[in-house]
């Protein structure tokens, strides 16, 4: 029988993978995708717990997370495009005029 813990662990693994990606990738878009992986793992947690707990709040939360993800995607990609126009790159190594 697949219990809620299975889902929780699976989402933990996905969360960790997402984190790993954020920490290791240099391409901004890929980093953004990794963040999406993290958010999705959270979503999975929510939905699993929602069923476990027995109310809909978690699922509603997922609904909003998706909304937020969409909004962030729009803004984030717009920012990347703006940056790309100026620097012709979206490598995070190039985000380095602001430091120290």
């Amino acid at each position, binding site marked *: 029988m697949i219990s809620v813990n299975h889902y929780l662990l699976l989402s933990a693994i996905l969360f960790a993978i997402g984190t790993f990606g954020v920490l290791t990738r240099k391409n901004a878009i890929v980093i953004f995708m990794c963040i999406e992986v993290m958010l999705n*793992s*959270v979503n999975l947690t929510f939905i699993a717990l929602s069923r476990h707990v027995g109310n809909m709040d978690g699922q509603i939360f997922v609904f*909003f997370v998706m909304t937020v993800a969409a909004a962030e995607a729009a803004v984030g990609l717009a920012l990347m495009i703006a*940056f790309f*126009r*100026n*620097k012709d790159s979206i490598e995070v190594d190039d985000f380095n005029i602001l430091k120290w």
Partner: protein
Amino acid sequence: MENLVQEAIQNVNLQAIMPSLVLSAFGMILLMISVFSKRGRTTHVAWLSVAALVITGMITLAGWNHPQSGFAGSVLLDNFATFFSMICIVAATLTILMSDDYLKREDFPVGEYYPLILFTTAGAMWMASGTDLMTIFLGLEVLSVSLYVLAGFFRDKLSSNEAGLKYFFLGAFSTGFLLYGVALLYGVTGTTKIQGIAAYVQANPDAATNTMFIAGGLLLLVGFLFKVAAAPFHMWTPDVYQGAPTPITAFMSAGPKAAAFAAFIRVTIVGLEGMQGELTSLFWLLAVLTMTMGNFIALSQKDIKRMLAYSSIAHAGYALVGLVAWNTVGLSAIMYYMLVYTFMNIGAFAVLVLIGKKGEDNLTLDGIAGLGYKKPFLGVALCIFLFSLMGLPPTAGFTGKFYIFAGAIKAGYVWLAVLGMLNSAVSLYYYLRIIVQMYFKDPTEDFAWVSLNLPTMVSIIISIVGVLYLGIMPGSLMQLAKLAGL
């Protein structure tokens, strides 16, 4: 079906969201106005948004002492929320006042800027009044997304792009942790309502030792700690503050930070009461770490905006002290401190807005040499703000710091207070460096480009009045902060 609508309508309590509702409405109207305005004509949008904020402010104040809750417990417009909302409104007003001329100078007069600030403020209000993690989360996102845009607003300027991007990525990243925390809390308590979480823990004391609960609480706080720029989640702050348009930096350091603190306080004090033991020790450490990081790194900064960014990290550390205290004095102190900080920091940035050249390359220590002689009023104003940031009487910074540390000492955290004071002593150095440049060095430039335009001056003067009034007669607002306590 009829029943459902009835039920939904019953939950609606517009009074509980009236300020944010009005503000959002104004935001949308202004959005339309700016869309239909001629290119480059934004002044009227600015003034209208100021009017919108003033009206919202009056509506907000009208709700003082009339707590309203609604939307099935999603929101509670109590004094606490009102107080923080007012801080955000003040911050937004002061920011908008200084923005119009700035945008024109930077050659980017885009009307949407103002509605975005209004939306940010509305988001901040939801954060402050939200009693459901969902409301808070969405308020936070409205605020954050607007700020991502505002930070990266100068899309043709690399530093602004970079600021926006960094803020965006790290913000999204921290959102991941926050959400994970919410999810875990939800798993343990079955609800996302703050009150519900508290009630569950009260009913099931084991929950307080449940590792999932603890981890959830901590991960949730990571999101807030990120927003208030507490170490080690502070690292975005200097880069973003430096790269963002200066008025936005000013705004970010005051309004959104206050909102973040509002949500932070409500979540910790009400929702995570069961974790008091863990959290106070955690905050103790983070407070010290934050102020130390902020103050120490600020010492070696040359760029004033960046220096003030580090200073704002340090101030977040001071404010955290109020949370460590975990008593009414400490909490009121945070509110009061955020108000004070709004005046002094926005004031300081307003001066920077005025003295910057296009592109703002001159906002370095060397760039402001002799400012006090060439522009006496700005010099004096900046001095007042800096002294307030240092925490010297008779400025608001002092009374604020006093309030904060009074809370800590009352709660017995004398050593924390001592470390905080030593930290302020360290901070004196870099604030003084600015004054040294302004007054003790001979001017190298004539500052002829500085135009003392009315709105910015109004903003500076309001800030000065605020700083001095709160410094000399802090009683009334301290009292209000007390009444606004949870």
